[in-house]
C-alpha cells in the first residue's frame, strides 16, 4: 500500500538521527562536561574523604588536612550544582535541536508531499513522535554513556596511578557492568520481548473484539465464549511473562555481582600490595573506597540500551518517510495558467499506487467546461478520490492526459496549478487556531470584510455571529473540536471559496455528517458555487439533480455519464442507486 521507498539500514537510522543533532554539538559537549563533573564529584567525594580519614589516622598537624577538608566540602556542593546545570544545558540543547529537526523534517515533507500516508492519522502522529525522539536521543541516549566514558576514564586513571593491577581491575569491572552486562541483558531480553509482544497482541485483539463487538456478542448470547477467549489469551501472556521473569532478572544480578566482585578484588589486591610494600596504607584506602563509589558511574547505562534501540527504530521509520522521492514531477517550467476560459479535459487517465497495485483509475475521460458543475459519483474505493488527488497535483497521471486550458497539467509548476484548481481536499484539516487564521490560509492578505463575505457564502456567518462572541478570533480547538461537524465542513468550504480558484474541486465535502446536516451543507454549497466551474466528488445521491452532468465511477472506470434526468431514465447503476426498478422489458427481477 505504501509508496516504493528505499529500505533504511537500522543502524543508519541511529547515525542519521545523531547527524541531525550535530549543529548543536558545542552546547551538548558542555552538557556532557557538566554531567562528568557531577558524576565525578560523587566519586571524588569518597576518594578524597578516604584520603582525609586515612591521613587523619596518622594524626598529622591540622594544616596537612586543610586542603582535603576544603575539597570535601566543595565536592559536597558541586555535585548537586553541576548536575542541575547539566540537565538544564542538555535539555536546552535538545530543544534547540528539536527545532532544527522539525524544520528539516517538515521541509522534506513539504517537498515530497507523501500525501497518501496522511490518510492514516496514526501514521502522522507516529511520524511526529519519531521526529521528537531526537530529544530523547540527546538527553537520555547519548549524554549518559559519554558522561560514563569521561568519568570512568578518569577513575581508571586514578586507580592505575595508585596501583596498576587495581586500575586494570576497575577498568574491567566498569566495562563489564557498563557495557557487557547491559548488552547481554538486552540480548537476553529480546526473545522474551518478542514472545510477550506476540502474546500481548493476541490478548489485545481478543479484548478489542470483545469490547467493540460487545453489543453483537450480547445480542447473540456469545459474550461468555468471547470472555473465555480473552481469558485464555491472558493466561498465555501471564504464563510467558512468569517464565521469562527468570531470564529478565539477569541484568540486576550480574550488575550487583560485578560491582561486589570488583570491590572485593581491589581489597584483595590492595591488602597484598600493602603487605608487599608496593602501596601505602593511605592510597590503599583511597583505591578501595573509589572502587566502591565508582559503580555509580555506570548505573544509568542499562536504561540507555533500550532507549537507543527505541530511537534507532524511530530514526529508521522517520528516514523511511523522509527518503521518499516526491511523487509529483513538474515544477521545472515557468509556464503560467492562461487567463480567460479554463476548460479541464481528461483523457484516458490511469493512476495506480504501485507497480503491483490495481489501477485506481483505469482510463477515465471527463470534461469540465467554464462555469459548469459536474459530480463524480461512486462507491467508496471506486477511485474517485484519486481523481481529486490528480487535480490537486498530489499525484501524477501514470497514463493519459489531464489538460488545463489546453496544456497538460504536468507542464505547469505545481503551485501554478493549485492557484487555479483548489477547493476542499479529502478530510480538510482545521488547524488549532482561530477562525481568522484558518480562513486566511486560503488568502493570506484577506481583510475581515472578505473573510466575513466568505463565511456568509458558506452560510457560517450567522452561526459565528450568534454563538461566538469573539467572532473571527474564536479559537476552534484541535481539529476544530469546538465546532460542530457541519460547521467544520462549512469552514472548509468558506476557505475554499476564499481561495477563489477557477476550478473548484470538492472531495466528499459532506462525509461524516448526519443526513439532515449533509443536505443543508450540500444545498448551501451548491448555491455558493453557482456559476463557478465545480467538480463535486461524492458517494451519495443528495443534490445531484442540480449538477449539469454526473459521472458514475466504479472500479476506476466511468460507468455512465450524463445529466441527472437522462441517467435516471436509463437502466443502469445510477437508476438502481435511486432504488428505482429496472425499466420494463429488461427482464431483471424486482424485489417483492
Amino acid at each position, binding site marked *: 500500500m505504501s509508496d516504493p521507498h528505499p529500505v533504511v539500514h537500522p543502524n543508519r537510522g541511529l547515525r542519521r538521527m545523531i547527524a541531525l543533532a550535530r549543529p548543536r554539538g558545542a552546547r551538548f559537549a558542555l552538557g556532557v562536561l557538566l554531567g562528568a563533573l557531577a558524576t565525578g564529584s560523587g566519586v571524588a567525594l569518597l576518594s578524597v574523604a578516604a584520603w*582525609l580519614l586515612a591521613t587523619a589516622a596518622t594524626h598529622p598537624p591540622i594544616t596537612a588536612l586543610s586542603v582535603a577538608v576544603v575539597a*570535601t566540602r566543595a565536592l559536597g*556542593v558541586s555535585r548537586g550544582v553541576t548536575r542541575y546545570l547539566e540537565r*538544564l544545558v542538555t535539555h536546552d540543547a535538545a530543544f534547540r535541536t528539536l527545532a532544527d529537526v522539525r524544520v528539516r523534517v517538515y521541509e522534506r515533507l*513539504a517537498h515530497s508531499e507523501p500525501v497518501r500516508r496522511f490518510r492514516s492519522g496514526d501514521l502522522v502522529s507516529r511520524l511526529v513522535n519519531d521526529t521528537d525522539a531526537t530529544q530523547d536521543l540527546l538527553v537520555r541516549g547519548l549524554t549518559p554513556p559519554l558522561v560514563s566514558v569521561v568519568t570512568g576514564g578518569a577513575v581508571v586513571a586514578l586507580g592505575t596511578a595508585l596501583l596498576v593491577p587495581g586500575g586494570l581491575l576497575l577498568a574491567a569491572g566498569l566495562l563489564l557492568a557498563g557495557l557487557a552486562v547491559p548488552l547481554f541483558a538486552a540480548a537476553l531480553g529480546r526473545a522474551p520481548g518478542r514472545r510477550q509482544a506476540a502474546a500481548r497482541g493476541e490478548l489485545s485483539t481478543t479484548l478489542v473484539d470483545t469490547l467493540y463487538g460487545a453489543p453483537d456478542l450480547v445480542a447473540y448470547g456469545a459474550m461468555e465464549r468471547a470472555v473465555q477467549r480473552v481469558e485464555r489469551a491472558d493466561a498465555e501472556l501471564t504464563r510467558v511473562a512468569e517464565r521469562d521473569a527468570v531470564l529478565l532478572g539477569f541484568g540486576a544480578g550480574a550488575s550487583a555481582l560485578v560491582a561486589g566482585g570488583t570491590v572485593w578484588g581491589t*581489597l584483595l589486591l590492595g591488602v597484598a600490595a600493602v*603487605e608487599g610494600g608496593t602501596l601505602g596504607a593511605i592510597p590503599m584506602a583511597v583505591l578501595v573506597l573509589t572502587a566502591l563509589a565508582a559503580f555509580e558511574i555506570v548505573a544509568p547505562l542499562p536504561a540507555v540500551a533500550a532507549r537507543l534501540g527505541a530511537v534507532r527504530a524511530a530514526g529508521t521509520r522517520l528516514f523511511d518517510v523522509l527518503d521518499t522521492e516526491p511523487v509529483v514531477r513538474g515544477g521545472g517550467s515557468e509556464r503560467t495558467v492562461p487567463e480567460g476560459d479554463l476548460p479541464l479535459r481528461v483523457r484516458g487517465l490511469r493512476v495506480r499506487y504501485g507497480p503491483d497495485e490495481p489501477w485506481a483509475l483505469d482510463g477515465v475521460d471527463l470534461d469540465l467546461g467554464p462555469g459548469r458543475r459536474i459530480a463524480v459519483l461512486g462507491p467508496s474505493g471506486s477511485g474517485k478520490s484519486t481523481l481529486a488527488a490528480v487535480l490537486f497535483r498530489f499525484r501524477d497521471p501514470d497514463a493519459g492526459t489531464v489538460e488545463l486550458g489546453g496544456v497538460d497539467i504536468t507542464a505547469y509548476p505545481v503551485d501554478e496549478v493549485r492557484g487555479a484548481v483548489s477547493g476542499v481536499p479529502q478530510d480538510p484539516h482545521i488547524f488549532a487556531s482561530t477562525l481568522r487564521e484558518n480562513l486566511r490560509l486560503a488568502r493570506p492578505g484577506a481583510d475581515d470584510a472578505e473573510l466575513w463575505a466568505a463565511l456568509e457564502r458558506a452560510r457560517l456567518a450567522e452561526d459565528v455571529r450568534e454563538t461566538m462572541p469573539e467572532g473571527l478570533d474564536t479559537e476552534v480547538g484541535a481539529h476544530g473540536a469546538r465546532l460542530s461537524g457541519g460547521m467544520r465542513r462549512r469552514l472548509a468550504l468558506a*476557505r475554499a471559496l476564499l481561495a477563489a480558484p477557477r476550478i473548484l474541486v470538492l472531495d466528499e465535502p459532506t462525509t461524516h455528517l448526519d443526513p439532515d446536516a449533509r443536505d443543508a451543507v450540500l444545498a448551501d454549497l451548491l448555491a455558493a458555487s453557482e456559476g463557478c466551474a465545480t467538480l463535486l466528488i461524492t458517494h451519495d445521491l443528495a443534490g445531484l439533480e442540480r449538477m449539469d452532468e454526473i459521472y458514475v465511477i466504479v472500479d476506476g472506470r466511468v460507468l455512465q455519464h450524463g445529466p441527472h434526468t437522462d441517467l435516471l431514465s436509463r437502466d443502469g447503476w445510477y437508476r438502481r442507486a435511486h432504488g428505482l426498478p429496472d425499466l420494463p422489458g429488461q427482464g431483471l427481477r424486482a424485489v417483492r
Partner: protein
Amino acid sequence: MRPLDPRLVRAARAVRTHLAVTVACGVAVTGLVLAQAWLLARVIAGTHAGEGLTELSGAITAVAVVALVRAALAYGAEAAALHSAARAKSQLRRRLIAHVTGVRVTGSPESAPGERGPGPVWLSGRTDPDDEGAGTPRAGELATLATRGLDALDDYFARYLPQLVLAVLVPLAVLFVVARADWISALVIALTVPLIPVFMALVGWHTQARTRRQWRLLNRLGGHFLDVVEGLPTLAVFRRAKAQAAIIRRITDEHRHATMGTLRVAFLSAFVLELLSTLAVALVAVEIGLRLMYGMLDYETALLVLVLAPEAYLPLREVGARFHASMEGVAAAEQVFAVLDEKPPGRAGPLSEAALRTGARALVRPCRDGCAAPRIRFDAVSLTYPGRTALALSEVSLVIRPGRGLLLTGPSGSGKSSLLALLLRFAEPTGGTILVERPSGEGGAPLEHVPVERWRELIAWVPQHPYLFDDTVLDNIRLGRPDASVSEVRRAAELAEAHDFVSALPQGYGTRLGERGARLSAGQRQRVALARAFLRDSPIVLLDEPTAHLDPDNAAAVRTAVARLLEGRTGVVVAHDTGWSDLVDETVRIESGRIGAMT
C-alpha cells in the same frame, strides 16, 4: 497519588505475596549493606595497623560472600518481582474484564451468581442515538489500559517498591549503627534524611502549580507541530505548505522558552536531593576526619561511618529516580479502579422468584420449531440515558404484533435506535412498561421479568454496523449458534445472499476475516450479519438501517435477503427513509422521541 495504593494491595493477591517477599529481601539487603561496610572498614583499618593477608583473609572472604549473596538477592528479587507483576496484572485485568463484560471470569471475586454483573451495555455506544454505532466507545481505551497500561506496573513492582522498602529500612539501620559509633554524624544524617522528602514535595508542588498555570500555553505550543504536519495536504492545496517552516521554528523556540522555565523549577527537586545527600556526606566526612585526627574516634569506626553515610541516601535517590516511570503503572492501576468503581445504571439486585415465574410464563418456549412469537406492547415507555436530561423516548405506546413487519422511520436522533435498544434490553425503560404477551393476549408480563438471556434468544439483530470478528466466516456466522453444522451455515449464507462471495474467498468459509472483518466490503459485512440472523432463526428480527451507505448493487442484495428474513417473522426495521414500506405491514414515524402518525 500515593506511593502504595491500598486498593492495589487488596485487589491482587499476588501483590500481597510480593510485598512480603520484597520486605524480606529488603531486610536481607540492609543486613548485607551493614556487613559490607563493617568488613571494608575492618580490612582497611587492619591494613593500616599492619595486618596482612593471613590475618585479614577471613574478612576478605566474607566480603566475597557478601557480594555473592547480594547478587543472588538482586537477581532473585527482580525475577520474583517480575513474576508477581505478571500475576498481579493478570488479576487486575480479569477483574476489569469481568466488570465491563458482566461475565464472571475465573479467579475474579467479582459478581455473585444469579443476576449478572453490569454487563457491557452500559458502556455501549449503540444505546446512544447520537452515535453512529461504533460499538463500545471506550473499547480501545480499555484494551490499551488492560495491556500496555498495566505493563507499566512492571517497573513499579520490580524497581520502585523494593527501593521504597529499602528507603525506609536502610536509613534507619544506618542511623542506628552510626549513632552507636559517632553520635554527631548520626545527628547530621538524622537531620538531613527527613529534609529530602519534605523539600522534594515542596518543589514538586510548586512545579505542579506552575505547570498548571502554563498548561494551556504548553499544550498549544507542544501540539503545533503535529497540527501542521497533519494539515500538510490542506496547506498544500492552498500553496501555504512551504511558508510554515519558519513558523514551526518560531513556535518550537517559544515552546522551549516556556518549557525551560518550568524545568528550571522542576529540576530543583533533584537538585535538593543531590545537594542535601552529598553535602551531608561531606559534612560527616570532615567531622569524623577531624575527630579522628584529635584521637576522639578510631580509624575503623570512622571508616564504617564514611562507608555507611552515602548508603543512607542511596535508596532515597533511587526512589526519586524511579518515581515517575513507576507512577505510570500506579496511574494505570488507578484507572482500572476507577472503571471498577463505575456503577451501571438500571435495576439493582436479582429478581424475585415470583417475578421470574411470571416472566417465564409470558414466553412461549424458545422457538426453533415453528412456535409463535410473543406480542410486545409498549405502554407509555420513556427512556432517559444516564447522565442526560433529555428524553430519548417520551411516552411511546405501540404494539408489535407477532409475525408482522413494522417500519420505524424518522430523522436521525429521533429515538429509533433507542427503541431497538429497549427491545434488545441494552437499556431499561425509565418510565412506563414494555409488556410481553402471548399472541392471544393472555399471560402478559413486564419485559424486565423475563430473564435477559432467554429473551435475547428470541431475537436476531442486524445492526447498522455489524461487528465481525477476526475469525473465520464460519465462526462469524455461527455467533449465535456455535454448534451449527457447516451445511446449516451454508444454507443461512445462501438465504442472506452471502454464499457467492464467501465461496469466492481463498479458503471459502474457513477464511479469516481480519480485524473487524476488514476483508469484506460494508455490503458484504451486512450480508454476513444477515446470515447470522438466518442461522439463529429466531421469531423476532431487528434491523437497523440495513442499506444505509451501501452502493446500489450491495443494497439490492441486502434488500432481497431482508425481505426473505422478514417472511413469517416479527420484524422491526429502523430506517431513515420510507423506502422500506413495501416490505412491512405498518410504518411508525418517530420524531424527537415521540410517535408520529401511524399508517
